[in-house]
């Protein structure tokens, strides 16, 4: 993909991401929100492909569109009862939230418009997996191990928290 096609791809993917993210926030049925969240994640995998990060695109589809969305749907099915049509409403501080968001957007827009980036014309190497593996298992091996430990702790913690509590209050 070169030139004009890259531009077309970027704008199409950006429109998909922003539109589906807006639908995630605006829809009143939370199951529909999660479905649009999956659309948003898949479009973001496409955006990673335009950024020459193909391994990350695969991880995005596997972890986010595959695992996280399904897990959230299971959570909703365990929790929600009755009418699904009004499960995802706004609270009473919508105006204050809009103000905060406008402030964040103005600051971010100003900073990204005024910053002078020292860019390079070097292309990203073709073998992303090999390069990522090299630094992941050499320079960043300790964060890698800590991430593995974090996943284990999160797994055990999630099982413990979601386990049924007996009537006498003991967690056994």
């Amino acid at each position, binding site marked *: 993909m070169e030139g004009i096609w890259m531009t077309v791809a970027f704008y199409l993917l950006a429109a998909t991401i922003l539109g589906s993210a807006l639908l995630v926030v605006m829809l009143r049925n939370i199951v529909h929100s999660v479905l649009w969240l999956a659309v948003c994640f898949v479009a973001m995998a496409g955006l990673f492909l335009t950024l020459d990060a193909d391994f990350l695109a695969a991880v995005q589809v596997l972890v986010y569109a595959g695992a996280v969305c399904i897990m959230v749907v299971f959570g909703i099915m365990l929790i929600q009862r009755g009418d699904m049509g009004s499960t995802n409403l706004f*609270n009473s501080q919508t105006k204050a939230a809009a103000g905060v968001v406008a402030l964040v957007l103005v600051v971010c827009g100003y900073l990204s418009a005024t910053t002078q980036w020292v860019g390079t014309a070097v292309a990203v190497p073709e073998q992303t997996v090999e390069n990522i593996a090299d630094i992941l298992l050499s320079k960043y091996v300790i964060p890698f191990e800590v991430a593995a430990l974090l996943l284990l702790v999160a797994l055990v913690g999630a099982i413990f928290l979601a386990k049924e509590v007996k009537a006498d209050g003991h967690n056994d």
Partner: protein
Amino acid sequence: MVTTISLTHYMVLSALLFGIGLFGVLAKRNAIAVLICIELMLNAVNINLVAISKYITPTLFTGQLFAIFVITVAAAEVGVGLAIIIAIYRNRVSVNLDDFDWLKW
């Protein structure tokens, strides 16, 4: 040139996505909706990391590596968050964040 996509394009997209996610976090009533809006914000950060990795340090791969760590932490966060929400639902039979006021007096 209008037709080339620069780093600023990705920055603006990421800022807009972050704003949408932040609005959802602040203005939503359902705890699960807040959780998925946090996912949107983390994804906005990932776009920034990967874009900077491509345009500024294309051969170092640090940005892509940190995006992978962010994805890991986000997955762990969703698991524990959903477990906490399910545990709270058992006590209060509600996922409305306005009902969670034990610590208020």
